């Protein structure tokens, strides 16, 4: 029952009314309609305490004896539900789950193991009935992980949803930055103070950009978004604090310690009547530009890269590039997320 007031005008009250459990005993964390606390759907879900515990767990798991590590989630069941193809993210999550000893099952739209026309809700309920304890979801629809989390009550890890978010990518990017900048893995709201991160490219369509733009300012980083108008609307600057837009990529580079290049899809440029050659001229990370404007910056790319378009090989494979390290940090972060999702306590007693 709501408080005896007149109707509230703010939208949040509608959510509040819906989200309120009937009674605390009646509504365990896994009940339908509630999101399991082991889920990771958005960078917004992460406060500093959670970021620290995930990073600590990643450190612990990475250095652990592999045989001992594989006992942690021995025979636990993790499902990977992929409605979009993704070699990198899927393999990373799958290897992470297996490294902890869990059984994984891949359900992919491409292998047509998803029944034609079956709803996400029904697929989720079926996977749960088959014993899935955690689902890693990749969907072309923004917000799909919320639906799956609410309908199944299972811990859900967002492996990328539409144009919304890719939070495990932001965590692995963060771990890569901390490692390259030698900042350790214990973070505070000041850890990245004085650090400027430029994210360049198709911000509008990028879930990686959103997850990073929401995560990094929590640690004090300044984030610059750079790209041409159609791929970077002005409103992008309003989604988080400490976010600015700089359309001149060179000026953005001049200020940056970290540069994150995003994949550009040529079809999208065509649809927006942007000239590919002009794009390269203004926004490509190539050796000359990096040498002139960001000779010491760490270069990141979430992959898959289109060499010769947003980034050239000499930069991608050069000494400033941390692209290969990102893959390795991805495995550690995803092990931590799966362990956290399945609720098993860290052996050293770190809380999830």
């Amino acid at each position, binding site marked *: 029952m709501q408080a005896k007031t*007149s109707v509230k005008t703010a939208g949040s009250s509608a959510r509040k009314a819906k989200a309120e459990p009937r009674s605390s005993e009646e509504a365990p964390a896994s009940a339908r309609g509630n999101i399991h606390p082991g889920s990771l759907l958005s960078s917004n879900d992460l406060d500093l305490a959670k970021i620290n515990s995930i990073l600590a767990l990643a450190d612990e798991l990475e250095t652990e004896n592999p045989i001992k590590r594989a006992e942690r989630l021995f025979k636990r069941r993790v499902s990977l539900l992929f409605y979009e193809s993704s070699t990198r993210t899927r393999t990373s999550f799958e290897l992470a789950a297996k490294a902890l000893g869990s059984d994984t099952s891949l359900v992919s739209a491409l292998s047509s193991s998803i029944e034609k026309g079956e709803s996400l809700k029904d697929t989720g309920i079926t996977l749960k009935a088959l014993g899935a304890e955690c689902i890693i979801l990749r969907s072309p629809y923004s917000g799909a992980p919320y639906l799956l989390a609410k309908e199944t009550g299972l811990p859900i890890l967002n492996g990328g949803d539409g144009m919304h978010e890719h939070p495990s990518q932001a965590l692995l990017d963060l771990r890569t930055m901390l490692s390259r900048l030698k900042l350790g893995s214990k973070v505070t709201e000041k850890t990245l103070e004085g650090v400027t991160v430029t994210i360049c490219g198709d911000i509008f369509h990028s879930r990686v950009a959103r997850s990073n733009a929401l995560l990094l300012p929590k640690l004090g980083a300044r984030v610059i978004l750079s790209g041409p108008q159609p791929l970077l609307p002005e409103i992008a600057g309003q989604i988080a604090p400490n976010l600015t837009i700089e359309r001149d990529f060179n000026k953005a580079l001049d200020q940056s310690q970290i540069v994150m290049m995003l994949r550009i899809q040529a079809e999208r440029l065509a649809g927006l009547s942007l000239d590919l050659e002009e794009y390269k001229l203004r926004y490509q990370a190539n050796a000359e530009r990096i040498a002139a404007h960001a000779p010491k910056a760490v270069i990141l790319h979430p992959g898959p890269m289109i060499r010769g378009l947003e980034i050239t090989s000499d930069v991608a494979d050069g000494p400033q590039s941390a692209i290969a390290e990102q893959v390795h940090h991805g495995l550690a972060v995803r092990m931590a997320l799966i362990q956290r999702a399945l609720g098993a306590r860290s052996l050293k007693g770190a809380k999830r």
Partner: protein
Amino acid sequence: MKPILIRGGHLIDPASGVDALRDVLLVDGKVAAVDAPGKIKNGDADVIDAKGLVVAPGLVDIHVHLREPGQGYKETIATGTAAAAAGGFTSVCAMPNTTPVNDSAETTRWMLSPERNAAIRVFPIAAATRGSMGESLTEYTSLKAAGAVGVTDDGKPILGEAIMREALTAAARLNLPVIQHAEDTRMTGGCSMNAGPVAFRLGLRGMTVEAESSLVERDLRLLAQVKDSRAHLHVAHLSTKAALDAVRKARRNGLRATCEVAPHHFVLNEEAVGQYDTHAKMNPPLRAEADRAAMIEGIIDGSVDCIATDHAPHAAHEKEQEFERAPNGITGLESALGLTIATLHGKHKLPISRIIALLSTQPANVLALRGRGTLAIGAFADVVIFNPTAQWTFKAAESKSKSKNTPFDGWTMQGQVQMTISEGRVVYKRG
């Protein structure tokens, strides 16, 4: 049918300028007498004690989707009108986006057949173009003769200038309004909420204000070109300040332009989408806070002609989908009065008589529903009796609609319907 005498209530009938204690006698489906308390003899009438309650002309909703023919799993004319009666409505205007589209006199008559078991009066609004395809006009004369009270391609806006001009011209000859769902769909492909920072953060493509306002401006320009003083454009579910300003300006220039606003557009803003709540997905979308506030302002200053719910029932499985895949729309008939009183009277101090005007008198006028929206002697005996101060909790599960897709489940409402009378028959009584 026995006469009904409503005793001791506070009669609010803006059309006849009454806002006082009055008894009302209903005989043979019409209002037979209105007089000071105690003046009307009981006779053989059933007496209803309305002490402490407001007695008003039954509410009129000129924008509902009753889903019949063809989509009976969402709603039927019987269930939709039962929900309407529970919400205090005695007249509803049914939109033509059914299966098939109501673009013929035959379908219009089918909807009006007694076999549909409507609890209250249904007024079909027919398609403005064949199949709502925007290419050729439907037969306005025969549609009107069959009972249609307006024409629209709701949900599939009429984009072509020539066909819109033709529609306005043809409808004017019959004194019918053309009702436009103002959305330039060339600008809204793939969009599922209002454009702005919230949509950007959620990774959803947004519908801009311009997609609504530019089409309203275009339609008003066409309306001005039609040299017939009967030409009438009605803007459905108007949701932006820019579009409202365009309507204001056109009216100052003497054009016959009217508009309606839905309760959700003056109660909620885009933040209600929250974590992809499909019960906050409708078209037009919930807008920015400034636009929500502008709707309130427009209602209070009289720029908005009426409140209409855009009652749009959908089955649970349709709304339990990814946000971008879920259909647009929410139910609205049973929450309209409670939300309107709580917001406009409770918060903004608008008198109850203005609220009756917005929910009954004025919508009846917009579509020229004769004898509706008033309790003058001789008018239809369409009455709502409600307690204007009662606060209550709206529970979607208890709704009489077949569908429960509402963002207002669990909300506190003000103003509770006690009884609804349609043409002299009690069609709803609070249990």
